[in-house]
C-alpha cells in the first residue's frame, strides 16, 4: 500500500476537532490486523479499542455447539470493543478479522479517561453505538426472513463499503461461518451471482463486477442500516455540542428536536396511546 497510514482513514478520528485529535494522536498505535485474527474472544478481557482503517472486523455470536453467525460488520466507519466504554467488562460475542489490513488501537485506560470527559470522542462513540445497534437488530430480521443469496449480497455490499477496492479475499468456508449457513449454501448462492454476472469468484478472491445489480438484488436490510448511519453522522459533533449546551441552558421541558431532519409532525407522537394489543 503506497498511501501512508493515518488514523483519519477511520471516520471517527477524522470527525474529531483538531485539538481532540492532536491530544489522542500519540496514543493511537498502528497495528496490522491479519485475516482470521481474533480481536477479542467471547467472555475475554479487552485491553484496547480498535479503529479499523483498511481492515474489516466481523462480530460473531458463538453457539454452544461451535456454530457462529455474524451479528455486525465493522470497518473504517466504526470501532471494535465498545464494551470498554459501555462498562460491560466482557461481551458474549467474538470479533474476528474478516478482511486483512490495518487499524489503530487505543489503550483501554486512555480511552476511559477520554470518554469520561464527555467530549466529542464520547459523542462520536455513542452515536456509533446507536448505528451498531441498528445494524445488529437488522441482522436479526435478515436472519429470520431472508434467503442465503440475499445475505450474501448484503454481506458483499457491507464489505465493499468498507474497502478501497472491489476485490475481497475470502474463502467460501469463511463466508459460511460469517453467515451461519452451510458451505453448500454459499457455493450455490455465489454460483448464482456469478452466473448472472454480478461477481467473479476464483480461488478465494471475490471481485464485484456489477455493484448496482447487487444493490438491486439485496434485501432492504442493507439500505436500512446505511440510512441510519448517514442520519447519525450527517451532523458534525460540534453541532451536537452546541445543542447540548443549548439544552443545558434551557430549563423548560418541551420536546426538543436536535435538527430539522429529526422533526416530525406533532400529531405523529403516539406516546400517550393506550396499549391495545388484544
Amino acid at each position: 500500500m503506497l498511501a501512508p497510514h493515518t488514523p483519519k482513514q477511520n471516520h471517527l478520528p477524522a470527525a474529531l476537532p483538531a485539538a481532540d485529535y492532536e491530544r489522542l494522536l500519540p496514543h493511537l498505535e498502528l497495528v496490522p490486523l491479519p485475516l482470521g485474527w481474533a480481536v477479542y474472544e467471547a467472555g475475554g478481557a479487552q485491553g484496547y479499542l480498535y479503529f479499523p482503517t483498511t481492515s474489516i472486523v466481523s462480530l460473531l455470536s458463538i453457539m454452544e455447539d461451535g456454530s457462529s453467525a455474524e451479528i455486525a460488520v465493522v470497518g473504517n466507519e466504526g470501532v471494535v470493543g465498545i464494551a470498554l466504554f459501555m462498562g460491560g467488562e466482557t461481551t458474549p460475542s467474538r470479533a474476528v478479522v474478516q478482511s486483512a489490513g490495518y487499524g489503530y488501537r487505543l489503550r483501554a485506560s486512555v480511552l476511559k479517561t477520554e470518554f469520561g470527559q464527555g467530549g466529542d470522542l464520547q459523542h462520536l462513540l455513542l452515536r456509533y453505538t446507536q448505528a451498531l445497534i441498528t445494524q445488529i437488530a437488522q441482522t436479526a430480521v435478515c436472519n429470520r426472513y431472508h434467503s442465503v443469496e440475499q445475505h450474501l449480497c448484503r454481506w458483499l455490499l457491507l464489505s465493499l463499503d468498507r474497502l478501497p477496492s472491489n476485490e475481497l479475499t475470502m474463502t467460501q468456508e469463511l463466508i459460511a461461518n460469517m453467515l451461519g449457513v452451510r458451505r453448500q449454501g454459499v457455493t450455490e448462492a455465489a454460483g448464482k451471482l456469478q452466473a448472472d454476472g454480478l461477481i467473479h469468484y476464483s480461488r478465494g478472491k471475490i471481485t464485484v463486477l456489477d455493484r448496482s445489480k447487487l444493490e438491486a438484488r439485496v434485501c432492504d436490510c442493507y439500505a436500512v442500516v446505511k440510512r441510519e448511519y448517514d442520519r447519525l453522522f450527517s451532523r458534525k459533533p460540534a453541532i451536537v455540542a452546541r445543542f447540548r449546551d443549548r439544552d443545558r441552558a434551557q430549563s423548560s421541558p418541551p420536546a426538543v428536536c436536535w435538527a430539522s431532519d429529526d422533526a416530525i409532525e406533532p400529531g405523529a407522537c403516539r406516546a400517550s396511546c393506550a396499549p391495545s394489543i388484544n
Partner: protein
Amino acid sequence: MLYEPGETIRHVYFPGASLVSLLTLADGHPALEVGLIGREGMVGIPLVLGHNVSSVRALVQGTGTAMRMTSAHFRKEFGLSLPLQQVLYRYTHTLMAQISQTAACNRFHVVETRLARWLLMTHDRVKSDQFRMTHEFLGHMLGVRRVGVTKAAQALQKRKLISYSRGDITVLDRRGLEAAACECYEVVKDMHDGAQAGHAMRKMRLSAAA
C-alpha cells in the same frame, strides 16, 4: 405504541409490571421482536446515546404500569449524573447483547425453543406465572405466522410446560421450560445478572421520579 421508527422520542419509560417489546419492521413480513424490556431496564436508549430518534417500534405488551419522563428532562438529569450515565451505558450494553443473541437465535434455533426462550424472558420480568400474550404478539416475537405459533405452543403444552388458552399463558413447569429453551436464554440472563442493572436501576428510578 410508544415509538415508531424514525419518530422523535418524547418520553423515556421505566416499566414496572409492564413489558415493552422492541420491534424491527421488515417489508413484506410481520414486525419482528428484537428486544424485551421490563423492570430491569429503560425504553428510550437512543437518548442515552445522544440521539433523539427511535430506530425501532416500541410496543407495550400486556398491561401494567411504567414511569415516564420527558426527553428534555431526562437529558438534563442524564447530563448531570455520572452514576446514571454509568448504569444506563451498562444497561445499553446488555440490551445489545440481547439483540445480538436474538440475531443468532433467529438463524439457528427452531420455533419451539425460541418460544420457550421468550416465555422465560417474559416470566422473569412480569414475576407472575400467568400472563397474557396473543397469537399475534407471539408471531412478532418469533417472526412466524399464526399457525407456526399454534404448533409451537401446543408442543410446549403437550409436554405440560405451559397451559395456553386464548392468549392466557400459565407457566406450569419453569425448570422444564428452561430445559426446552435454547442456550440464548441463559447467555442473556447471565449478562443481565452480571450487570446488576436492575438493582441500580431501581435506585436510580426513585431519584429520577422525585
